[in-house]
């Protein structure tokens, strides 16, 4: 039994007014990959932005079991009434302090990341971007500052379907990655790089001064959202690293090292114990594993497209 039966069409089937009304009122039901979210937003202006980002996502009615109930409220903090903040809560409780109101969208998106990471342990959650081409999934595991998000964003506009830029979701004991399409966070220089690289991409406003610098979000492609129920087995695992002015270098990496990097970078590897060990082992055994060093996004995407297309034939 899934929540499919409670599918009410797409967000874009609603008018922006109705969308806002639901967010401010009883809450809006959204299907995001395997998660059924209930969202309440009471921050002026944010609902229009979310309407654009989530327009292709599936609406859910309210009489369902949800994966989480989240809320973003506008708060004025006594005694500093001039300081307007937003409060992110899950089931009525706040996991972190209130944040400045101009960071509302990043706070909301990071909040969703937090909720998923903290309570979705029926899945193994790798810290990785996941993309699909020719029915095979590619993992781009995250290494801080190495540019996984930029590469993921770029590839999503060169023929790859995006599963996620952050969460490599897979059920232990299975072999298929599970899509969780959501707005992707681009930081600092990446924002302009992707604007140039994919002029047709929908990128939201840039928010400066967040904990991660300046952040803007990229909407996942319509295709990525439309196929969010289509899983895929992993064909390649590529550990990317952007190095200024470096020439492209794609090298095989040992399975042992791949295993170690995946395991140490997962959100809940240790929690899942033996099941995680076996699942990561399967992934690494089946997939071709590489390290990639690049500086030119176009060149990198072309190389990876070739690799994926060669493997498919």
């Amino acid at each position, binding site marked *: *039994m*899934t*929540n499919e039966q409670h599918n009410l069409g797409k967000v874009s089937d609603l008018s922006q007014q109705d969308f806002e009304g639901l967010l401010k009122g009883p809450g809006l039901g959204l299907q995001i990959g*395997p*998660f*059924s979210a209930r969202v309440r937003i009471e921050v002026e202006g944010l609902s229009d932005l979310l309407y654009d980002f989530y327009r292709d996502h599936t609406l859910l009615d*309210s*009489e*369902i*079991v*949800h*994966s989480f*109930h989240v809320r973003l409220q506008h708060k004025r903090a006594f005694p500093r009434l001039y300081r307007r903040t937003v409060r992110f809560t899950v*089931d*009525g*409780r706040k*996991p*972190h*302090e209130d944040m400045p109101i101009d960071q509302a969208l990043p706070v909301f998106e*990071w909040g969703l*990341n*937090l909720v998923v*990471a*903290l*309570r*979705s*342990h*029926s*899945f193994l959650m790798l*810290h990785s971007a996941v993309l699909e081409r020719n029915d095979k999934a590619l993992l781009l595991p*995250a290494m801080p500052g190495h540019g996984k998000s930029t590469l993921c964003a770029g590839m999503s506009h060169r023929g790859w379907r995006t599963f996620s830029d*952050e969460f490599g979701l897979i059920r232990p004991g299975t072999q298929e990655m599970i899509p969780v399409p959501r707005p992707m966070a681009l930081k600092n220089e990446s924002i302009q790089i992707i604007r140039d690289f994919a002029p047709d991409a929908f990128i939201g406003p840039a928010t400066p001064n967040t*904990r*991660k610098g300046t952040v803007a979000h990229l909407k996942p492609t319509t295709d990525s959202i439309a196929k969010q129920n289509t899983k895929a087995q992993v064909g390649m695992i590529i550990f990317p690293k952007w190095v200024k002015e470096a020439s492209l270098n794609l090298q095989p990496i040992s399975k042992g090292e791949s295993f170690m990097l995946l395991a140490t970078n997962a*959100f809940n590897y*240790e*929690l*899942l*114990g033996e099941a995680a060990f076996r699942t990561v082992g399967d992934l690494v055994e089946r997939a071709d594993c590489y390290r990639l060093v690049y500086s030119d996004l176009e060149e990198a995407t072309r190389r990876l497209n070739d690799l994926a297309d060669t493997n498919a034939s």
Partner: protein
Amino acid sequence: MPADRHKHHESVRELLHIALNDPGAVAAMDAADLDLLIRVARRGRVLGNIAVLLQDAELLDSLPEVARDQLESALVLATSRASLALWELDRIAWTMLNYDDVRCIAMKGCAYLLLDMPNARGRIFADVDLMFPESALAGVEEFLNQRGWRSQELTPYDQNYYRNWTHELPPIVHAEREVEIDLHHNILPRTARLKPDAEKLLKGAREVAGSDYFVLGDEDIVLHAMTHLMFNDELADKLRDLVDIRILCEHFSAKDAEFWSRLLSRAEELDLRRAVFYSLRYSQDLHGVAIPEAIITLTRAWGPPASVVWLMDRIVPRALYPPHPDHPSRLISISRWLLYVRSHWIRMPPWLLLYHLTNKACVRRFGRSRESAPTG
């Protein structure tokens, strides 16, 4: 509106009562009820217990996938924590093989695990609690310190608070792992107003077959759970602890018909009557606890004045049970605040209480914000 709020509180309690007793009824719940149940069970830390009941009844697969995922997630958490606890116990036992012969008593969650009690499965376990004779405590702490277990990095206030004011030891953690270990000399802190006789507790301890550890006697295990809940805690969302008490009583009384009378005698011997009174009173409507009428009658005399009972009846359930996540209630907030103050009042003398509350208020106001979890 007040009637509505009360209704929300009542419906939460009812859903939890059903879920803790009747997995078939959970499988038959409509989506809205199941959704609410999962949210409040998570907050009350009984989602794992409920998941175990459903798993044992082979009903997990009949639930909607989104519900199943969350219940399985709770089971994963519980299993992981339990393994970590057992491993920590293994490492401590291994380390202390070469220590002078001293009895190490595992308490609470660890005891339930070692004894394979029915409430151990699905229980989201927190710290390792170990009890030693008071005279041995300093030596044990030093021995473990030298072998990799260190006090957490606490603020100077906290270190001072632990060592000089409560005379308890701050928790220790091994460098390579993350499980916190609390070393105790009694079932209550030194500064608490109640002072059960540690000697008697130690004497009643028995060895766990196939383990290097001891546990308290059956009645003492129950009394510890009862005393800890009612006299060492602010009670907020501690439904899980009440469920522990209920399951312990069920288990021991099923094993031995004399359990109840022995529990009462021991409570008198250790001067812990009030904790028994409250625990039995508030676990009664959890069903499942077949507390003999005679026992209820006997413990009735162990309560405080009627006016206090009246107040506690109104505030304790509002603290123990999770609030409705979408309908906050001032009454619940007030109840919890009152019990918060009470928990400190009974744990420490008035002057220490004032010092502690003042300091905590200052830290909260001017201290730095908590870190958020990774966002990548």
